[in-house]
């Protein structure tokens, strides 16, 4: 079913010669991201918005390892994002005033939950896999919602804030919301995305694409399909959970909506809108989605209609996404 969209789609580093050399693209992307604090205010934006783009972009790129590169549909990644956020928040509130420890524990919490659940569902495919991920994701939503004393319930987890990071003798003070925190986010984002890029290009990444394009043939080539899908699911959960910890640090707050399946849907639409067969697509999708949502929700109370309409329009008229269009022209 997915092969129609898959076979002729552009894939990062897969033999196509792009019109613009890749290193030019890379330098452009990073230059734009690094210069955000200088050009965004000129356009009337604020730096925290760019921070949100990075956080959701990382979550969507993590999901896309599974969705775009393995061809397996998870509609429950908000669970791991939210678990990351709650893990970080709970660590800072109850355990230790340490930002790195909060990030580590949050990532582990979300990633391990995904790893264990992945074991149960790797044999499912298509919509059934998606349905299991949705239902399992909602478990955490209800847990955070009803375990009032520990998680703050519906009001969310408050009373924690990010702490300065000690680096040997130096201290990196990220407690104020300014540029320094944005650059901290960007540094974590860059490390994570670099790792993700290595994974996609590695032999492991190629087996994932082989599974996506033709699962039966991949099996004949002795690729352990279930294990690779499980690994891909697990790794993508770790990345999304890392994004979740950054979300908690960004807002000094974790709320049950970070676990809700609506957010899972937003992640998926970010991937599709940006182009889920491309590496950078989810970041582009996250940028468009976050900016649009910010704009629309400040304009009208009926923002749900607009967001829903975006979903419908993307599916009906724009299924390849923004970067996917470019790839199509290149390969045609």
């Amino acid at each position, binding site marked *: 079913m*997915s092969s129609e969209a898959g076979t002729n789609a552009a894939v990062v580093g897969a033999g196509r010669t792009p019109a613009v050399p890749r290193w030019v693209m890379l330098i452009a992307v990073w230059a734009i991201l690094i210069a955000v604090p200088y050009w965004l205010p000129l356009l009337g934006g604020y730096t925290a918005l760019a921070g949100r783009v990075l956080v959701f972009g990382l979550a969507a790129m993590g999901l896309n390892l599974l969705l775009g590169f393995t061809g397996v549909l998870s509609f429950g990644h908000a669970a791991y994002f939210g678990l990351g956020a709650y893990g970080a928040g709970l660590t800072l509130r109850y355990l230790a005033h340490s930002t790195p420890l909060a990030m580590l524990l949050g990532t582990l919490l979300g990633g391990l939950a995904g790893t264990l659940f992945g074991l149960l*569902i790797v044999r499912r495919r298509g919509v059934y896999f998606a349905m299991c991920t949705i239902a399992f994701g909602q478990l955490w939503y209800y847990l955070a*919602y009803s375990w009032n004393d520990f998680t703050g319930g519906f009001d969310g987890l408050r009373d924690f804030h990010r702490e300065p990071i000690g680096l040997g003798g130096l201290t990196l003070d990220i407690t104020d919301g300014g540029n320094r925190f944005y650059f901290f986010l960007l540094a974590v984002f860059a490390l994570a995305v670099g790792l993700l890029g290595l994974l996609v290009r590695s032999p492991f990444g190629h087996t994932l694409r082989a599974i996506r394009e033709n699962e039966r043939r991949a099996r004949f080539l002795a690729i352990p399909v279930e294990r690779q899908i499980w690994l891909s699911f697990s790794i993508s959960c770790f990345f999304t959970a890392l994004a979740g910890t950054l979300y908690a640090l960004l807002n000094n707050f974790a709320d049950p909506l970070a676990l809700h399946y609506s957010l899972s849907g937003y992640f998926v639409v970010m991937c599709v809108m940006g182009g889920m067969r491309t590496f950078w697509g989810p970041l582009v999708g996250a940028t468009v989605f976050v900016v649009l949502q910010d704009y629309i929700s400040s304009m009208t109370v009926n923002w*749900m209609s607009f967001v829903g309409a975006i*979903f419908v329009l993307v599916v009906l008229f724009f299924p390849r996404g923004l970067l996917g269009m470019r790839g199509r022209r290149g390969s045609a």
Partner: protein
Amino acid sequence: MIQVILFNVTNGLIIGAFYVLMALGLSLILNLSNVINFAHGNFLALGGYLAFTLSPALGYWGALLVSPLITALIGLAVERLMIRRVYNRDPVYSLLLTFGFAFVMQDAARYIWGPNGLPLGLPEFLSQPISPTLFFITWYRVFMVTVVIIAVLGLFAFLRYTQVGVRIRAGTLDLETVASLGVNISLLRTFNFALGCLLAGLSGVLAAGQIGLNPNMGDDLLMPSFIAIIVGGVGSLIGTLFGGLLIGVAAALTTVFFPSASEAVIYAIMMIVLLVRPRGLMGEEGMMA
């Protein structure tokens, strides 16, 4: 204590009955069209609101009959205009489509009928308890369960004894063969989608009499319906039926002993089923692969 347990078991059966109607509709669409209809809860709300609007003109009984039919007609239009465009594409698109459409429908309901809860008036005798000792069982609850039973029996009879019903069941097993035998599967899927929406609309009217109306009334029923399908086994409507009743009663019984765990218990059941019997209680082998 006995009365508390009895109260919660009846509660559970009634909630389970809603889960069953929702989940059967979802299951029909999922089995034949491979689409998870995220907007199913919104079709439920639509049915309830239509009954609210129509009952001054048609009376309760008229609204009970007519509003599920209108819901089905709207479902038919939605399928024709949008959903059938994504049947042959990656499942991610059908999920995003119905997910986005659910947002639009919920916002539309809020826009048309207002964000606040509305009551649906019932005929006088339905709100009476059936006896002083069983004061917690109103005639309305008996009536709801009866309607659900009739609807479920009707659905199964329809699938068993009519030509269209047999085609739907055959299409669930092997759509390609059914198509090559000359059945218009595009129409079949449209009809099937409308049938699912009919069930959602009916449960909406029934639910409105019990819990009242609000724009996101279907949301709380959607997730348990997914779980009912997973627990019962994808591909098996009987499984969905038992899955819905099972989690309804389990959640209600947990309320007696651990009120805060009543939501969590249905997820626990799902995990256990996935672990012990991955294809679901009554799922066919290979159906979920």
